[in-house]
Every structure is written in C-alpha cells, then in structure tokens.
C-alpha cells in the first residue's frame, strides 16, 4: 500500500539476522531496530525526499534531504552527526532506489553506529 510497507518487507528479507525484531510500521514512519542497539526512524516520501534518523545509546544522528545546507558537497542531502555538526552525507544518494540507500545505511550502521569513521574529524 505504501513505500514503507515495500521497504520493510525488502529489509526484513535482506537483513534476517541484523534486525532486533520485526520492523514497526506506523502511518508516517517506519522504525527499524538493529541487533547492535541502533533504532532507526525512516521517513521516505520519495527517492529524493527522506529523513533517516537514528539513536544509539545517548547519541542521535541523522541523514536528510532538507534543502538548507547549500555549501555542502552533497546538497541537498546531509548528515547531522552525533556531535551536532552538519556535514556532507557519507552514505546515501537522492534519486537512488530507496531500498539501496537504506540497505547501504544499515550496513554502515552495523559497522559503525555513529558513522564517525566516515567523516573527517
């Protein structure tokens, strides 16, 4: 019925061992819990309009396409890191298939929940 339903089914099939329970579907957000303690909130309205925000312990981070940070190399998509900085998005590409972007992000979060190793200090 919606993009989130299709995305959830794809992710559950692609990451059977990396999810901590079934993906939770609400009317406007999909919640993905990973086995390493990351909780990811997915709002995907279109391939070029999304917000992916996650929590790991006390740390909160996110990638989104709000068209505000024109100075960044990846405008409009950008990364709000756990320290509160706004930097270029090291993972997703607007326009790419949503399932590909999400799979890439989940693999990156399983490897490094803050994505700290993917951005300059």
């Amino acid at each position: 019925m919606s993009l989130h339903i299709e995305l959830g089914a794809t992710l559950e099939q692609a990451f059977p061992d990396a999810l901590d329970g079934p993906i939770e579907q609400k009317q406007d957000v999909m919640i993905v819990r990973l086995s390493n303690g990351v909780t990811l909130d997915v709002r995907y309205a279109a391939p070029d309009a999304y917000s992916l925000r996650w929590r790991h312990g006390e740390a909160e981070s996110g990638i989104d396409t709000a068209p505000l940070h024109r100075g960044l190399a990846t405008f409009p998509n950008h990364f709000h890191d756990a320290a509160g900085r706004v930097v270029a998005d090291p993972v997703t590409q607007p326009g790419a298939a949503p399932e590909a972007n999400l799979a890439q992000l989940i693999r990156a979060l399983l490897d490094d929940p803050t994505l700290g190793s993917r951005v300059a200090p």
Partner: protein
Amino acid sequence: MPEFFESIDFELATAIEELARLSYELRENRNAILAAHDVADEAALLARIEAGEADEHPTYEYYLAARILADTRDAARAALAESLQEANRT
C-alpha cells in the same frame, strides 16, 4: 448503507470498513500536521523551512510525514474504490 452491507460477504464488508476508516485517519492526521504549522499544504511547509521561519528539525520530518500520509491515503482510497466495485458486482 446498512442495506448495502447486507448484500456483500463479511470479509469484503470488513475490508471496506477498515479502508474507509484508514482513509479518514490518514486525512485527519495530515490535516493535523498542516494545521499545527498553519499551512495549507506540504509545499507551504517546506517553504517555511527554506525561509528559516521553522526549525529544520523536526519540521522537515513533519513535512515528510504529511507527504507520506497523503500518498498512503491515495493508495487506501484506490483500494477502497476497488473493493466497492467488487461489492457492486456481487
């Protein structure tokens, strides 16, 4: 309306009722987001973010949520129309 439901089987009637309720909830939830930000539609909400009149977050998440609710409602209404067509054939 009661007569309409008497002529169709239970499963189809239940599906129609659930889709109608879902469509209503989706519309109301989208309207609540837009009303809370005093805008008429999603484009106006995004414009407020771009103009710096609203915080980037969580307003951008509300903008996306409104779009998702609208798209899902369209899908629910299409499914409802299909179910009603099926009911009218029985």
